[in-house]
């Protein structure tokens, strides 16, 4: 799996609510990464995900997974979604209403394997729900079933379309861990569409920033969301997105609104009552006037 680079070089004219927009994307990422496709709504994130899955065809270009060509407009190659060995999690989860939780997972398997299905059900804490139909599940439970089902066919690429957008803030934090677990369980590549900075920062190892159909930035989250968005105003409220231990102090990353990142240094004693996801206020207790000679 080491050299399974995913190559994307595509173009597609999209008809959006704001008129036509040309989606023109050229990028690649290595196997094993958890990649976040980040950007405002209407930027073309979901379209790109659907192109990767084969549910949508680009106007022209090339999509390659390792040595396998998935799409090549010049050679007229277009592998249908069935042959791409992917796991796709839809925004509405798309659980089959006629099947129970267990049946949904069994149906997804390439070869029926009751033991593997039970294992997945246990991992995602669905044991008590296995005989339930999707109608009787909460949003968070549906998401877990959808994740388990997407993993059931042991995909080489996991695609998640705004996996947490339908859930409330508290639920998000829990389920972000589930996504990370799913990614580690699979050991393959995960591509996640998101417009939630918090989510991206907590989960992704690689970010592709998309705006208006083109990639504006790509790289590690820390690099992509660099100084320009880091702010140090006097009073800012936000949520704790990450706590990093760097002896003898901690670096706490707080996200304010949907796109402001603040890094704060905290001692262990400051963190006694704080944990990931907590709402906090970042403020300075006093100003430190600095005097400098003019001229």
């Amino acid at each position: 799996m080491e050299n399974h680079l995913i190559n994307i070089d595509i173009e597609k004219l999209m008809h959006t609510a704001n008129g036509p927009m040309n989606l023109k994307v050229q990028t690649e990422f290595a196997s094993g990464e958890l990649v976040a496709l980040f950007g405002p709504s209407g930027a073309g994130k979901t379209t790109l995900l659907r192109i990767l899955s084969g549910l949508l065809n680009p106007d022209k270009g090339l999509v390659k997974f390792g040595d396998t060509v998935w799409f090549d407009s010049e050679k007229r190659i277009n592998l249908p979604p069935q042959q791409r060995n992917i796991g796709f999690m839809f925004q509405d989860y798309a659980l089959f209403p006629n099947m129970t939780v267990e049946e949904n997972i069994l149906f997804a398997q390439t070869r029926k394997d009751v033991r593997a299905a039970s294992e997945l059900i246990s991992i995602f804490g669905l044991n008590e729900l296995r005989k339930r139909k999707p109608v009787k599940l909460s949003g968070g439970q549906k998401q877990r079933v959808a994740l388990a089902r997407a993993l059931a066919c042991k995909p080489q690429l996991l695609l998640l379309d705004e996996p947490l957008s339908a859930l409330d803030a508290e639920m998000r934090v829990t389920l972000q861990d589930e996504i990370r677990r799913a990614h580690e369980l699979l050991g393959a590549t995960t591509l996640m569409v998101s417009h939630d900075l918090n989510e991206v920062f907590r989960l992704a190892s690689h970010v592709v920033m998309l705006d208006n159909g083109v990639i504006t930035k790509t790289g590690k989250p820390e690099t992509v969301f660099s100084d320009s968005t880091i702010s140090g105003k006097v009073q800012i409220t936000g949520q704790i997105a990450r706590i990093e231990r760097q002896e003898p102090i901690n670096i706490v990353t707080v996200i304010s609104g949907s796109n402001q990142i603040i890094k704060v240094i905290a001692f262990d004693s400051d963190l006694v009552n704080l944990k990931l996801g907590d709402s906090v206020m970042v403020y300075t207790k006093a100003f430190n006037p600095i005097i400098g000679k003019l001229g």
Partner: protein
Amino acid sequence: MDSTFIQTLLLTFKLAFLTTAILLVIGLPIARWLAYSRFRFKPVVEALVSMPMVLPPSVIGYYMLVLYSPRGAVGGFLDRVFNLRLAFTFEGILIASVVFSLPFMVQPLQNGLRALPDSLREASYTLGKSKLTTFFRVLLPNIKPSIITAIALTFAHTIGEFGVVLMVGGNMPGETRVASIAIYDEVQALNFETANQYALILFIISLVLLTTIYSVNKKQEAWKII
């Protein structure tokens, strides 16, 4: 009740049952195609399928008769090669019924399929399932109310048809004489009691079928059907 009465009713149900069975087989692929195809001239096909709903039955009956005529191309071919004559035979009214009831089978199925979120179909494809597997294991089980509606409407509509059968089949006892025609015939002959028996039975059957449709749909209100 005399034997002609029973014979007529049996013939009526045989026609309705066979029409429904044939239409279920050909209606499903047509409905699937109409629900998902992006063919440019799809509206023309849709219009053709729905024509029997707006055309007078006598118009359909007339065209079927023209088609069946041994002097015409199709009828002549069937006559010469298979020694099959369709005008004024049971096979003839069966084919005419299939054509005439086509929209009653196709439309509920098509609407049912359209009402399902696209993501169900797409999810199945991404899980590696073929279009056929997806259709039978994911799509059809989730449009059960539409299937029941389609079957009941087709059955009831075939029992109730009059004009097409009269044009194509005439009124031959045991061959083409169905209940709706028998009622007309008995009234003409002033046999009001027999006419009344036929009418009552048709009335009850239609009532039972429609009640079934509405109670099934009430249970499944999450699914919007026609």
